[in-house]
Each structure stands twice: as C-alpha cells, then as structure tokens.
C-alpha cells in the first residue's frame, strides 16, 4: 500500500499572543515519505504540529494537504475536521486519557464518523500491531508503563484512520531502548497502513534511522531543508547548530 497523501507548508508565521514562535516556515512532506523535523526544546516544533492540526492559527502562510490527489486547504480548519481528513497527531508526552481503559482510549481515537465506520477493522489492526494492548484492554491507561502508554498513543492514532501521521517527540520520557522500539513501531505502522509521516524529534540519531528527509528548525526558522538522512548527518551546518560538533 503506497500513500498518495502529502503535506505542503509554505511561509507560515504563528505564535501565542504577542510571542512569535514561527517565522516564514516552509516544509514539504512528499507522499509516502517519513520526514523528520529536528530541533531542540523551544524552537517551534510543537507549534508547527499544532498549526497543522488547527489548534494554533497561523497569521500568515499556507498549509495544504494533498489527499489521494485532492488538494485540501487546512489553514483555518478546526481540529476535528483536520482529523476527519485523516491527518492525525500523536501529541507530545502522549497525552492519553489516564482514567479511561485502553479500549476506551482506543475508541476515542475513532470519535469522528469517518473513523467510526471502520472501528472494528482498525481495532483488530491495532491489536495485531500491538498485541500487548489486547492483553491489557481493560486496564486503566494511567497505571501503565511509559512504553505501553506509547503503544496506546500510537494505537489511538491507528483508530483515527490516518493517512498522514504527525508524531510529536515520541522519545519524551522513554528509556533509550524504548525510543529505539518506538521508532521501529512507527516505521511498521507506516508500512502497514501506507502512511506519510511527519515526526518532530530531538533525538537526532534515533530519528534519522527511519527518516527519508530531514529539516532542522532553530528559533522558529528553518536552518536546513530537505536532503536524505545521510546528507543530514554530513551537513556542516547541522553538525554545528544542532549536534554541537
């Protein structure tokens, strides 16, 4: 299953009140690729993710998704409608519903009508991808380990019938071995569901393992664009501003 859905962000400015976080940021996610957005804390990765989802409203620029050949303008769209188009965010820090069970969390992933129609099918897929969740379906999510919670977060995204998956800092709060496992899970999800992936990460070495292209964001500006994973690793600028070598 190859994806034909991509994302094109051109020159967006966004922020909170008087604070400008993003200035003239452009980014392209070609269909079927995994694009990684690198940057340390406070450089605007999450704001960019939230802008795509409609949770933050950019003051300039454009965000256009191509979904099965159709152009959809996402700018100014409400989050619930963005989700309906199959653009699904796994938020930073997982942000699950701790007082609900695994199954209830997964069901909430299929809240919109489009995803609800495929609820049973996606639930089965979810349990196939993450067998651990099937064993724990009645457990309260708040009582699970960080790695298991990460599975619930990814599983919840599967339930939303995604075409473009946005993942915001999946490595936060996880042990190194689990970060590595998480990257593999995302790659597996991408292959199984035929996704296009945009992932924000600060763990450079783990992220480039699964990336086709990379961007580096510093203080709300893109300092390095495009290229392959190898190109990223060799780039002088990246080594200097991001890796501090």
């Amino acid at each position, binding site marked *: 299953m190859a994806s034909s859905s991509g994302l094109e962000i051109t020159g967006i400015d966004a922020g909170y009140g008087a604070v400008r976080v993003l200035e003239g940021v452009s980014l392209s996610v070609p269909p079927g690729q995994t694009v990684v957005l690198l940057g340390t804390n406070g450089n605007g990765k999450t704001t960019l993710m939230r802008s795509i989802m409609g*949770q933050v409203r950019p003051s300039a620029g454009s965000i256009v998704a191509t979904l099965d050949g159709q152009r959809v303008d996402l700018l100014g769209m409400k989050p*619930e409608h963005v*989700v309906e188009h199959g653009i699904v965010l796994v938020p930073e820090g997982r942000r699950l519903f*701790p007082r609900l069970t695994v199954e209830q969390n997964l069901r909430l992933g299929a809240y919109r009508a489009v995803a609800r129609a495929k609820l049973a099918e996606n639930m089965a897929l979810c349990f196939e991808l993450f067998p651990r969740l099937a064993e724990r379906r009645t457990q309260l999510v708040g009582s699970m380990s960080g790695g298991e919670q990460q599975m619930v977060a990814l599983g919840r995204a599967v339930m939303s019938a995604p075409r473009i998956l946005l993942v915001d800092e999946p490595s936060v709060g996880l042990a190194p071995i689990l970060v590595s496992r998480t990257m593999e899970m995302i790659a597996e999800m991408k292959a199984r569901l035929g996704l296009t992936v945009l992932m924000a990460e600060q763990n450079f070495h783990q992220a480039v393992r699964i990336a086709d292209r990379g961007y580096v964001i510093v203080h709300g500006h893109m300092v390095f664009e495009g290229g392959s994973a190898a190109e990223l690793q060799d780039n002088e600028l990246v080594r200097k501003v991001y890796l501090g070598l």
Partner: protein
Amino acid sequence: MNANLRFWLGAAALGLALVAGLRLLGNDYGYFAGYFVLQYVVLAGAWNILGGYAGYVNFGAAGFMAAGAYSAIVVRQWLGWDLIPGIFAAAVVAGLLGLGTGYLTLRLKGVYFSIATLCLAVVLQTLVVNWDYVGGSRGAYIIHARDIPPFNSYSEMLFIVMLALAIITTGIGRAVEMSRLGRGLQAIRDNERAAEAVGVPTLRLKLVATTLCGALMGVAGAPLPYYSGYLNPEAAFSLAYAVNAIAMPLIGGAGTWAGPVIGAVLLASLQQAATVTISSALNLWIVGWMLVIFVAVAPRGILGWFRKRT
C-alpha cells in the same frame, strides 16, 4: 436496549413504591422531606454532567437553581402559567443562561472557570434583589390551591412532580454517560488537548454540557416557590445549594450516573434528619464533615470505593 428498559422500569417501580409507602404513612411531612431529598437528586445529577464527566467544577448551582425558581415566578405573574409550564420555562431560561455562561467562560480552565461560575451567582442575586417585579429583596408569594385531585394533597403532587424530575434527570445522566457525548466529555476531563487532537469537538461538547447542566439545575429550582409558598433571594441563592450540588456527587461518586443519586439521598436525608431533630443551622456543618471524611477515606466517592474493592 434491554438495559435501558430495565433502568426505566426499575426507576418507575421504585417511584411507585415510594409514593405508595408515603401514602400508607399518611403524613404530609413525608412528602416535604421526600421533596427536599429529590430536589437534591436533580441538582446533583445536573452538576455531575458538567462536573463529573467533563471535569468543570460549577460553583454557581445556587445561581442556576434560583434562575429556575424566579423563571417560574415570572411566568406565573406575567402569563399566569402554573407549575408544569413554569418548569419548562425554567429549563429554557436556565439552559440559555448555561449556554451563555459556557460561551463566555469556557476559555477558562480549572479553578478560573469555577470562580467565574461563583461570580455568576453573585451577579444574578444582585439583579434579583433590585428587581421589583419579582419582589426584590422582600421576596415573592405564591398562593396555590390547597388540594388538587386526583392527588391527596398539594404536597403529594409536588412530591410526585419532583420524583418524575429526579427520574428524568438520572435517566439523562445515564444516557449521557453511555453516549458519544459522554465519552467526549470524559476525554475532555482527562486531557483536553488530546481530546482535541483525536477530533472531539471540545467547544461544542462543553457548550452542550453547560446548557444541559444549567437547564436541569433550573428545573430543580422551578417548583421551589410552590414548595415553600414564598421565595426571597436569600433563600433562592442559598449557599447550601451550591455546596450540596458539589458535595453530593463527590460523595456518591462523580462521573457515574448513580453517584449523585446515592450522594444526594445520603446527604439530604442526614440534613433533613438534623433539621428535624437538632437544627437546620447544622446542615452545612454536616456536609463539611462528610466531605472531610470522604476526601480522607474514599476520595472517589462511595461507588469508587466499592469499585476498587471488587
């Protein structure tokens, strides 16, 4: 569907048994005490929709309740409407009040939302005190017929009306809990940003919840002037309503449809017993102690305590 039918049949059977029991008792006091308890079942059930499922703590229950009570007085003076149409008017007025409050305050989260609802009650009370049409601070009288057949007495009729309202409110709470609306509200309670990210229309659901919560609180207050025959702002905006509306669901088990019923029956019966045997001045004292005990021993309420054991 089976479970739904069982719920409604069970509620109706329980209601009939209550009426039959009180008739056998043959004492008007039974109806008065029963009304007192049941109005809190409605109030607590209404609070639970916004506070228990969505996690937004409403401190303005007295304001919504009084809005309902005064709506009933206004439509009576203005249009000559009696109790039942008065209840509908109260639902509409308090529901709109809830919608408006929600629209203005739902950008606020946590304790800020609670403070805003507290302010609403104060503002409303000041308005009513200065509104001569409904008696201002002197209060308003409602003189009703002594008996209305087929009921044995007026208080029996009021009791049965409140019983029906309590059953309907509990049924609505249960329906909310089992619906997509309830699941969305629970998601908002647990993590509003994540709820947004999975496509829960958070603002719309919160507005539905504030409207429903407000309307049902208004409904709880509408028969109040008929019950006491006289209503002044001090009684209608009583702190007791605001405190009990929060304490009862918390003690019974917030976020479950049966929790507010259990909490209301327990706390209101205790308060009614204290009113008769000692003094009504002790009512809030009792609520305070119960809250302290429950926070220490069973922070998730009676239902939460049992659920943990099994």
